[in-house]
């Protein structure tokens, strides 16, 4: 993705049937306060998440999940991301409620950062910045 623009662009989404939005709203506002640009697309199929990420030319794809589906749908998102050629350019992160034993599996799939309840504004913004820095080979 474009590395010379000033603002980090983040796509925020939930899986299609996720019924909770509090986490997504809170994080969207936190990221905006930290100077990032947020495109919130709400409940979406994995196909829609990836195609929106391509279309919006985002640096980060964030998925908020509280009610399960993180493994099955997370895998689908990463598979599609690989197909569309954004797996290596964009940073994929997930936040919400998932069992601890799923965390290594999600990391292995390619979700570089995972945020659980209680994650602070600094945690989230710094982690995203670091991930982008690593991806671009230079600190943002």
């Amino acid at each position: 993705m474009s590395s010379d623009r000033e603002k980090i662009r983040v796509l925020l989404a939930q899986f299609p049937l996720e019924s909770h939005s509090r986490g997504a709203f809170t994080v969207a506002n936190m990221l905006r306060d930290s100077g990032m640009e947020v495109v919130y697309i709400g409940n979406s199929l994995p196909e829609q998440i990836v195609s929106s990420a391509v279309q919006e030319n985002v640096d980060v794809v964030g998925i908020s999940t509280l009610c399960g589906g993180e493994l099955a749908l997370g895998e689908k998102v990463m598979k599609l991301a690989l197909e569309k050629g954004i797996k290596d350019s964009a940073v994929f992160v997930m936040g919400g409620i998932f069992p601890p034993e799923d965390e290594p599996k999600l990391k292995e799939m390619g979700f570089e950062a995972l945020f659980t309840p209680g994650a602070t504004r600094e945690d989230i913004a710094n982690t995203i910045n670091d991930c982008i820095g690593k991806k671009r080979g230079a600190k943002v």
Partner: protein
Amino acid sequence: MGDKSTKEILESVLDEERKEGNSLYNPKALEVIQQSFEKWKNTVVSEKDRENWEMTPHTIIGSNIPRGLIYTPLDIADLDYEVDLGYSEGEPYTRGIHSNMYRGQTWTQRQLSGAGSPEYVNNRIKFLLDHGATGTNLALDLATVQMFDSDEPEADGMVATVGVPIDCVQDFESIYKDIPIDKVSSSIVTHYPRNTSIIFPMYLVMAEKRGYGWDKLPGSVQNDFIMENVVRSACEWIPPKDDFRVQCDNIEFLRNEVPKWNYVTLNGYNLREEGTSGVTEMAVALANGIAIMDDMLRRGYDPDWTAKRMAFFWAPANDFFEEVARIRAARRLWYRIMKYKYQAKDPRSCWMRCHVQTSGISLQRVEPFVNIVRAAYHALAAILGGAQSLHVDGYDEAYSVPGEESSLLGLRTQQLINAETQVTQVVDPLGGSFYVEALTDDIERRILDEIDEVEKLGGLPEAVAKGWLHHKVISYLLEEERMIEDGRIKVVARNYFRDPNVKEPPVVTQPYDSKIRDQMVDKLKKWRKERDNDKVKGCLEDIVRAGKEGKNITYYTVEAARAGATEGEMRRAFTESFGTWRPPVYA
């Protein structure tokens, strides 16, 4: 009634009632207390404490109501015992709806029955009943909540994750197999009007196939349009005014056909958990109650007939006395609304009966065992407030749906409050506390003020359509987040005495079993093959037509359920009939 607002009606009646001058304290006593109080305040209390006399506690989903340093008769100088308190099972029901409260009957100990296949949940229900649960509480999986069939693409990865999947009548047959549904009351957590209208008829068809008359069935559904239009995130919505109408269609249908069923559980709980104060939680639920009463009056039903089976659902959280006072305040206010706005004659119509679930959003991921203590305080507040039914959250709330161990611990917490603490021996034990009575008055006033705000916006469906509530929620939750960040809200182990070396303890969670979806899809395939598909198609067309023509839509979903229509098929019929709506988004 005329054009007077609820607030105007209540204020004029109460002014009239108070004219008698029957306040608890005589003016002379108050004068003496006033003098001694001033003297004490100015000589014993430090200057710093005098300056900071009122402080405002900040808590997760708290109401930010200022509190004084000490409460005296001066804070409740107007309290009229007969008008404001009375006796349990007596007007204005502040002290409870049953004369002997928990001595007569303990509250219903209703734990959610967990997640998994219909057959697994059937076993889980039996497990909880065997361990002393006195009602069942069925959580639905997200595909079912959002009205999708297990085989729709959106349901991928979501079947049986946080509840049980239901696609059609056969799933209810599996879930309630061998459960005496005429004796054990079933709470079916159909959050929305639309899924109540779709799912509940499947339960009724199951019951009639097993030979139970509908008039024998006890239980409750949720059926709250605030849940569908404000609280939930989703891929599609129908307009709030249509959803409100479906809510009332369900009420009319259930009241006529399933008379022992609680047709609506006005759900403050989930709204508050999404992000509102305890005051807004109750104001919105009561405003919905008012909107329902008005709509049923328009349909020609007597308020006493309508109100009999109305129930409420609250979220007791951290601010202990606020929670006790809130339940008492809502009980008194609902009574006043029913009595003075709707001239209810039957005492039962004036009862604010409530189920409570301890607050989930107040529970933390860090050091999860601390949550056991938090939930016990939440539960105790609910019981001291006089709740009818209780679910205690699992300590693993921030990890996954409750496992068997944490679910049992929730039930044990209830049993401990009931059998060991002895708080159940005396009715309304905090009644008469200067503090609790002053707080009860304050909260009642605040709830009524917010109801007034809603009425000035044109009533609840209109206020929701305008985005008033969405806006309120988002500003509340962002401010709350800031208060946690800057430490104004203290959360033990998270931002207050946080252990820098804290490690996550082993929490047993249920792994997702993708085979359940495959099984559901196979069952569904067989079901669709064996039913009369022309008949189903006709029934679905009838639903679309009933919606457009303003007929009670739930009579048509019952026919569709009998013919074997699935949940997703009926959802699409609703959407076709009413069209879609998008709520304002503040993310």
